């Protein structure tokens, strides 16, 4: 290995990803996002800015939302990592996911995983969040298609447990 390369060999790291104990051999410099996308094979968390600006890579680390591009994989040893892929049970969607579809809370969908994971963390903390709490929860998640208004509506619908404005089959 060249001196210019900071690769000092891989380490075996065990973490619980979406409830399943997972062992990966990773370089110390590899961030959690890349561990998930390349070593675990979960590509739902997206790589966009790689510096904690956009939120597209948001996952839960021991239950709290984090930008997985800012966390090293080796820091997750023994920890619980939850990603967008763990949210639905089979094809049974989480209410937030269903609300995103019903309220068209995305266009291209590239930020969607992060938006949903940020809101999931909010709802786990406070099932009846205020509008302000909803906005704050996703204020670190950029959406270039500009679906913000519908993202907030989707979250409000989950909170209010209201029937969606429009049904999928109409």
């Amino acid at each position, binding site marked *: 290995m060249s001196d210019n390369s900071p690769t000092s060999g891989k380490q075996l790291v065990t973490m619980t990803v979406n409830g399943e104990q997972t062992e990966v051999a990773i*370089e110390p410099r590899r961030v959690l996002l890349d561990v998930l996308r390349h070593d675990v094979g979960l590509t739902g968390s997206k790589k966009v800015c790689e510096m904690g600006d956009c939120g597209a890579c948001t996952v839960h680390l021991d239950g709290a939302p984090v930008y997985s591009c800012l966390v090293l994989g080796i820091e997750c040893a023994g920890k619980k990592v939850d990603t967008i892929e763990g949210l639905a049970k089979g094809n049974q969607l989480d209410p937030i996911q269903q609300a995103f579809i019903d309220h068209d809370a995305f266009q291209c969908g590239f930020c969607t995983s992060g938006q949903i994971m940020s809101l999931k963390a909010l709802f786990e903390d406070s099932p009846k969040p205020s509008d302000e709490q909803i906005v704050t929860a996703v204020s670190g998640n950029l959406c270039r298609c500009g679906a913000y208004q519908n993202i907030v509506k989707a979250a409000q619908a989950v909170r209010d447990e209201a029937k969606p404005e429009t049904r999928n089959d109409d």
Partner: protein
Amino acid sequence: MTIKTPEIESSKNDGDIELSLPLQQDLTDWQTGHEFTVVGKPHSRLEGAEKVTGRAQYSADVRLSGQLYGAVLRCPHPHAKLISIDTSEAEALPGVHAVISQNDQFDIDWYSEEAPLFSDQLRFVGDEVAAVAAVSTEVAADALRLIKVNYEPLPFVTDMDQALADDAPAIHDGDNRVEEDSEYERGDCAAGLQQADITVENEYRTQTALHTALEAHGATAHWSGDELIVYESTQGVHAIHGLLCEKLGLPMNKVRVIEQHMGGGFGAKQTLWKPTLFAALLSRKAGRPVQLLLDREGENLATGNRNSTLQQVKLGASNDGKLTAIKMTCRINAGAYATAGEASNVAGIFQHLYHCENVKTSQVRVYTNTGPAVAFRAPGYVEACFALESAMDELAHKLEIDPLELRRINYTGRDQTGDKPWSSPDGLKTCYERLDEEFGWSQRKAPSSEGSIRRGYGLAAHEWMAGMGNPPAAVFIKLNTDGSADVVTGTQDIGTGTRTVLAQVAAEAIGLPMESVRLLLGDTAIGGVAPVSQGSFTVPTLAPAVRGAGENLRRQILEAAALLLETDATTLEIKDGEIVSTEGKHKSLTVADVCDELAPQSLQAHGSRRANPTDTTIRPFGALAAEVAVDTQTGEITVIRIVNAPDCGRILNSKTANSQVIGGVTQGIGFALTEERMVDHNIGLVLNADLEEYKIPTVADIPTITHAEVNLPDLNANNTGAKGLGELPLIPAAPAILNAIFDATGLRFTQLPINRARVLAALQAQQETAE
């Protein structure tokens, strides 16, 4: 039972539909009073579940056996000569499988200037110098650091005004003008200004803005035998297909471009960029699949931007508000190269939006040592609408005519450059009515002041040169033996809802429920040629062809059903997958039953898009109003609410149409208030090639945005009455916001974006003038 499947004659396949039977439901039914069961409904996106579960596969998510990861080395200088490049250490690094650079001597030209793919003339910070493929993104980054490049920095110019100075460094041969000035005049502009009772004149500047699609440019390339398969993030799979074949000298049956989902493009992904070709070349060299996706810095530096402009605008009008002259002269910052794709048409809106006999426009692109510009959602029109609609607002203020009334006074239902009617001559008028209704423009309060907060209202109108659709498009539908249908198209869904909207059109035309239709797209190996998703073209191009194929298929189903029922096909129709009489009586026969009888034979149908009419000019229009609050202590601007009324013809899906409106307006708010690529002209470096300092709107910046549906089927445009929508809502947002700021504060800003610093400086100047 046997049935002869009707032959589709290619010579008859260039129109909407060739009916052999005089069916009652023909094309006219989509024109007046037709009761739609699927079209127009707020159907949720077909790919919704894939996207909310993280299962949707974007180009960046492709994982192939032995896949390598690419990275690009970029020039750190705004202008330099590459003296030498040594890649040997990078190639020797364990894990590195291929390096490409000038040393490979590829015979491939790039950009309109036909610069080589790897040039020894480097013309902007971020110009590509080399690319590597390695076992991981980390090792690829290590390899870039081991490449030794000897540059000779050259004099540079990054500022558009300075680029036209006599002593400016030449970026290419010549004087830094990309081309001769593009001139237009009708009537006599000088005379029109002479006869005006009043004139307004200003110089407007718009900034360089970045598309900022969250998914970066790039591709995964894989040589399967002698066939190249590319998973690309693009607005046009067929365009990429053609360009890859051209650049690599390959026949089209040896290249396949695939894209099922893409994470935003907004214009910047309408043509082939170097990273995709690098992936293909690296993959060929390494003998393994290569995924090369740009990092955010590369994305912001080198894959296009909305060109900055300098526009000199002069309007002349009589005291009753009628325009006597419009004059506009414009410079456009092209960056270092003229890229392919849609041109930025700044002059268009000045020529078209208002009735005026005397119009003169002139525009020219200027080279600078900055990243090349490329079309960005309504290129030219976003920049120009800000200038024209600011000037119109100023005119309204000076004449003491209501801004909406001034626009009505200068209404035209005709294309004055082609001297023919607009396809929807009342389109813009209807936008004005809907805007007035939904926003309450005529009933709005006077601008108000409460403490340091001042509130005001502004509006802007626009047309858009595209949105008419751009043939050709060919569509094929196969009816499965269970009565469900696969609609095969060559288009792509760039996040706009194409998949869903076209499935609705197919379901409606055939008579099937939505769940019986699958819409296939995004694969050049299965779908016929379709245009790039640019210019709001996709729906007005594809939907008529889908409808044509659907109606063809329906006719065949009914012919078969008529044989089974021993009746005349003209007495039958299909509703929700069931064969019914034209009076609506059940026949105890479904489309699935018909298919069952036909099996193992099956039905299939083609449709294609006919040319656009020549006796009319197809145009979408729009109008937008904004209410804003300005805090005169802090300079903070808060957009309170926006109503947008776009005329996109018939609305095929109200849910996805709403999303286009709120999304476009949201981007417009960014263009008005926060977004600007910053360059230090002294050192030639881009200061904010990231998402930290390039500020796009967040959820906290967004007002209530309302889509005032116009939904005026444009029956002169095509057989569905639908025009494009995607670009419309962005065009008028900035001028409406700026006009509202004027209404609130009396401050007329002529430069974008307007941030706190500029507001505070202007307020201070205003106060000093008052004293």
